């Protein structure tokens, strides 16, 4: 790693020779053409790793979902048995409903982070880096640390949140052990933790909008708010789309906060457990690998269907400049 100096030196030294060799042709051909064996060598580590640890396992999981696992790890073909159980399993229904609730609430993060990004993009705005750092902090923090801190804040007896609520005369519940409130408490932490990430994507999206549009709008007498709704929002729709897809996919995979903040002993677990939580429970706590694999396939299908649906819907509202 000898730094960029080695990179630029040969380029500066050779411009003339470069031209003479390509002289006859209209376009220089890609220099690393016909490099089949080299390409194989370059691709080998990543491709082998992906085949062994991700691609083949995906097919294995699909296969496992049609088997039942004995106590000693043997798979026995059981056809649609796991899927029949899946359809009749009330826990799965809960998990789907809970996952859907978390997904819908998590979408709150999209407009919130868009507003933060828009404010940070105002012309002449100061302290952008400081704000960006503060808003991004939850994204990088260890989930266990986040979960424990919020668990303390949400504590029904001596948590800060209920103390603040008591100041305005509200008697707060035991947020995380009350089945009626636990999922909302968890979703709020999820929103809190994802605003920073979305904000960064929105910031770069806004930065990509040509400033002439705003100048022209200003000449036409459009105010800040009109500019936001008529220029920023429409031109930001590709970013809004991307963030929405990511948010939904991430909330489909919600696990960490539920495992860490609620846990299996809580009376609220039935009202908060998600598909991935159930997958972990069945597969690794109860060692029912075949059934867990069926849940995995369900998760895969849900991800593909939702992503496809969003791509279909994007034609209605996403503008590509």
């Amino acid at each position, binding site marked *: 790693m*000898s730094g960029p100096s080695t990179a630029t030196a040969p380029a500066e030294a050779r411009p003339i020779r470069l031209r003479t060799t390509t002289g006859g042709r209209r376009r220089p051909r890609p220099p690393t053409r016909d490099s089949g064996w080299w390409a194989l060598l370059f691709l080998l580590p990543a491709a082998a790793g992906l085949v062994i*640890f991700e691609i083949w396992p995906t097919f294995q999981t699909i296969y496992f979902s049609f088997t039942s696992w004995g106590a000693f790890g043997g798979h026995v073909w059981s056809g649609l048995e796991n899927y029949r159980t899946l359809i009749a399993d009330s826990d799965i229904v809960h998990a789907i409903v809970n996952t859907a609730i978390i997904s819908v609430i998590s979408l709150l993060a999209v407009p919130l982070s868009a507003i933060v990004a828009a404010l940070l993009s*105002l012309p002449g705005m100061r302290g952008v880096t400081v704000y960006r750092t503060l808003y991004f902090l939850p994204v990088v923090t260890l989930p266990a640390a986040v979960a424990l801190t919020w668990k303390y804040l949400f504590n029904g007896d001596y948590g800060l949140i209920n103390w603040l609520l008591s100041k305005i005369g509200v008697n707060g519940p035991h947020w995380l052990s009350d089945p009626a409130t636990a999922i909302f408490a968890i979703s709020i932490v999820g929103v809190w933790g994802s605003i920073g990430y979305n904000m960064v994507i929105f910031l*770069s999206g806004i930065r990509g909008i040509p400033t002439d549009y705003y100048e022209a709008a200003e000449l036409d007498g459009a105010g800040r708010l009109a500019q936001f709704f008529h220029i920023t929002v429409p031109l930001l729709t590709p970013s809004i789309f991307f963030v929405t897809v990511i948010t939904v996919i991430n909330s489909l995979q919600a696990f960490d906060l539920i495992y860490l903040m609620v846990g299996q002993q809580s009376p609220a677990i039935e009202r908060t457990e998600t598909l991935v939580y159930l997958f972990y429970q069945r597969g690794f706590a109860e060692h029912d690998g075949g059934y867990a694999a069926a849940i995995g396939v369900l998760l895969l299908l849900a991800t593909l269907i939702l992503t496809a649906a969003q791509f279909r819907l994007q034609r209605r509202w996403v503008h590509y400049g």
Partner: protein
Amino acid sequence: MAESMQAPVRHRRRFRPKHPIAHLVLCVGAVFMVGPFLWQLSTSLQSFGESVSVPPTFLPHSPQWSNVTTVFGALPFGRELVNTTVMTIARTVGQVLFSALAGFAFARMQFRGRGVLFAVFLSVTMVPYQVFLLPQYQIMQKLGLLNTLVALFLPGMFSAFGTFLMRQFFRQLPIEIEEAARIDGANILQIFWRIMLPMAAPGMIALGVLVIIWSWNDLLWPLVVNSDPRQMPVSAGLASLQGQYTTNFPVLMAGSLLASLPVIIVFVVFQRHLMSGIAFSGVKG
């Protein structure tokens, strides 16, 4: 950058900040974002009595530094921090190196089946990682690697997303430099190692910081593959600490703070690279 470019246009003294309302909104938001961390910090220095008192204690009367030693005594906490560090470094080095190699091949080499292979890589990024989990666990079991450090990092060294990100970075680099080097007699390895790799350094750092953060914070895989506390990373270790110290929040907060500090430092130091990596994956995803 932006501020220095605007400075010569308007020579105005900036005693009053522009956009007071925007600042007000952003500050209120910032309190929500940072509040829990300040609360964590304050609680980590409180006595147990203070932490469960109503009204809550905002500033500890006499800082209880012993909470930190309690954390290290309650768990193999130091060992877990080392495990996390090893896991993170191995995953990061692996992902950055292998992604750079494959990304370069996709961006700059011509070979048969490139389009198909790239489509395969891209479709892997769509699969939720829980779908791999059971077979990955079995691989580790068959290799006899359960409850080892190797199990923590081995599958995490390969990434379709990383390959995609590196390909995007390599595609941006000017082709003329590569051509000149080739005419100069450099072979592909030299072009890659001595010329393209140093030029792609910002991309590699961006990917590296992303991997560091994901790896440091990863919970589900360690939970599945390592049940021995001495081989756990701190992400899973803190969860088990929670079981032992159900309501001793000062100790839990001290542990939380210590465990998240290294990754927060990485974030603050490499902020610019991290942001560009996220923006890159977002805008051109």
